[in-house]
């Protein structure tokens, strides 16, 4: 029993953090047209094998587990990383043969299709011919190249959004069962927790240098206590994330329940920490040039996918966990 990154897991974190700091810094989002991954970035990530960490080796993946998947997407989240990185890493579990190979390498991109009443929201990868839909019962990969989708203005500079009234029937790949949703929920929870941690780091760094009334703002209890609450939200969600990732890896019967709790806590921690980060920064926190608003806007998108409050809490109410 050990519930923190350890040994090889720490190497994965360091490798991912080092790579992503170069290719996907949060500063990218201050340039126009920076939403989503572009083709160059996608192929760079594919070359490193990041989309297929948790895919079996005989399918062209690294044969790692839910734990490494969570560790990687936490690093993505820390940089306000694109949602379509996750869609791509899920799609490799849904496609076969040549298509799978092209998804692993980043040769083709994939958008996420989310049902919204009778319509579909297509998130990320605006030029992509593929869209992935995931729910509790399975996952479907479709060719959307002929689909007429209307571009909508997205609140989140990191994620583009289109709307379509239909979805093609033809399926290029399909997986039955909850496994893809499990990786989706785990990955998005990990991104939210990375984001909650990034918000905490931003304000703690600022509180050590910014002065008002002749003192560093980090010496005021009004700021210190709010930061402590941010640290608690991140810590609680992170520990539950590690628990659920290890539970999935070990095939525990109650893994889905722990994951529901982890996503719920991650949703809360990310939005609350991004909120507090803006507020504690003061005026500079609401400017476009600052990163603070990027975290908040991205948090809302990640909280809306793969497990929202009402569904998660509805299942948790009657669920019982094992020892």
């Amino acid at each position: 029993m050990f519930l923190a990154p350890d040994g090889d897991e720490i190497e994965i974190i360091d490798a991912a953090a080092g790579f992503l700091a170069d290719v996907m810094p949060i500063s990218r989002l201050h340039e126009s047209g920076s939403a989503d991954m572009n083709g160059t970035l996608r192929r760079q990530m594919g070359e490193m094998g990041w989309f297929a960490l948790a895919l079996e080796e005989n399918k062209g993946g690294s044969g790692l587990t839910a734990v490494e998947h969570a560790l990687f997407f936490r690093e993505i989240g820390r940089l306000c990383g694109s949602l379509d990185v996750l869609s791509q890493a899920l799609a490799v579990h849904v496609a076969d043969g040549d298509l799978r190979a092209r998804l692993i390498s980043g040769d083709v991109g994939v958008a996420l299709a989310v049902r919204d009443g009778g319509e579909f929201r297509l998130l990320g990868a605006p030029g992509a011919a593929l869209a992935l839909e995931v729910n509790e019962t399975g996952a479907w990969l479709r060719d959307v190249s002929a689909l007429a989708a209307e571009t909508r203005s997205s609140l989140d500079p990191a994620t583009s959004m289109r709307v379509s009234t239909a979805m093609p029937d033809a399926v290029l790949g399909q997986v039955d069962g909850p496994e893809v949703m499990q990786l989706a929920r785990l990955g998005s929870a990990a991104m939210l927790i990375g984001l909650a941690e990034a918000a905490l780091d931003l304000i703690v760094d600022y509180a050590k240098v910014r002065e008002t009334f002749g003192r560093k703002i980090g010496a005021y209890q009004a700021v210190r206590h709010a930061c402590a609450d941010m640290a608690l939200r991140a810590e609680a969600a992170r520990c539950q994330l590690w628990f659920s990732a290890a539970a999935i890896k070990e095939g525990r019967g109650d893994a889905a329940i722990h994951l529901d709790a982890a996503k719920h806590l991650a949703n809360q921690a990310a939005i609350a920490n991004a909120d507090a980060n803006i507020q504690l920064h003061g005026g500079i926190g609401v400017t476009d040039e600052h990163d603070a608003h990027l975290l908040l806007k991205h948090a809302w998108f990640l909280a809306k996918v793969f497990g929202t409050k009402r569904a998660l809490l509805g299942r948790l109410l009657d669920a019982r966990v094992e020892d």
Partner: protein
Amino acid sequence: MDLTYSDADRAFREKARGWLSTNVPTTPRPAHGAAAAQFDRDWQRKQYEHGWAGVAWPKDFGGLGLSGLQQVIWYEELARARAPHYINTTYIALMHAGPTLIARGTDEQKAFHLPKILSGEALWCQGFSEPNAGSDLASLKTRGVVDGDAIAVTGSKMWTTDAVYADYQELLIRTDPGSERHKGLTWLIADMKTPGIEVKPIRTMLMDEHVNLVFYDEARFPVSNVVGQINKGWSTALSTLSFERGLGFIGDQLDLYERVCRAIDLAGKVRLENGQRAIEDAGIAQKLAGLKADALAIRAMTLAHITESDRTGEPGPKGSLMKLTVTATHKALSETVGDMLGWDFLEFDGDRASHPWTYDYLWSWVFSISGGTSEIQREITADRLLDLPRAR
């Protein structure tokens, strides 16, 4: 990262569950007074006689020498068996005084006191806080004057839990008259029957008298009762407090999940003022499910912290986060149950057994103030975990 219990851990759980299933007291713990203290002594004696006393203590000193993880298992099984495990009159002896004596006591002090603590023969109370030294412990003023082979103590201690029933007290006093703050203090074993000690109960909002004022008027204690060195008591006190930060609330942490599940069962039975069952109310259902997620996270945090400190050999810096979330979740659960119980929640005669939810609600302030207030826990977090500029 792994969640696997070793064969030894699993065997320990089976053994603990088996013993508890037939040995947990069948009568509820009396709410207050001498009867409660006697109940605690008897339950401690039973654990001692069957080889279950001192789960956190090293084997060399009569304990079970369990790893942190096995202690977690023990408290989980206590919660499952609904055994008496919440903070009671044996708490200071087992969780403060014993570990401090083990770390800093003389051989004579250990030989005399440790068996009495394990067997429930001796109850202890804490003598750290004063009327003007609570969160700011280092401002304490109760003075001790060394006079030959005795120390004469004069002053007062406050918030001393169960002082009326305690046999001994861990007493922190100022022995260097010109000293300030953390310097010049001494940690002393005080026999509560010593002449010159007077205990005055303080009635609380829980309609009980579990905390007390203790007055010392030239009360004389042998110098041989000093634990650690004279004028170096702060260092001894820190070993007391660090043990508490690591494991002090472990029972409450692990009990929360079971209590949330009991509240959800209750919500399926009670009816709201509109005739609906409480569980059918979306607001209440969502709150309870959210509390279950919080309780699961508290368990995950406990396991993460305990397995980390099993590896490093010392408690980490996150005990303050733990106490913050446990006390906040405890209060939120009480409030949610209070909302669904309606007028029944507003009946209270001070008895925990007959009014458990109301009692726990009132207890929530004791919980978030004692052992370092929530505000102090946020300060400690800001200093030690976040390294923010000091507020003081």
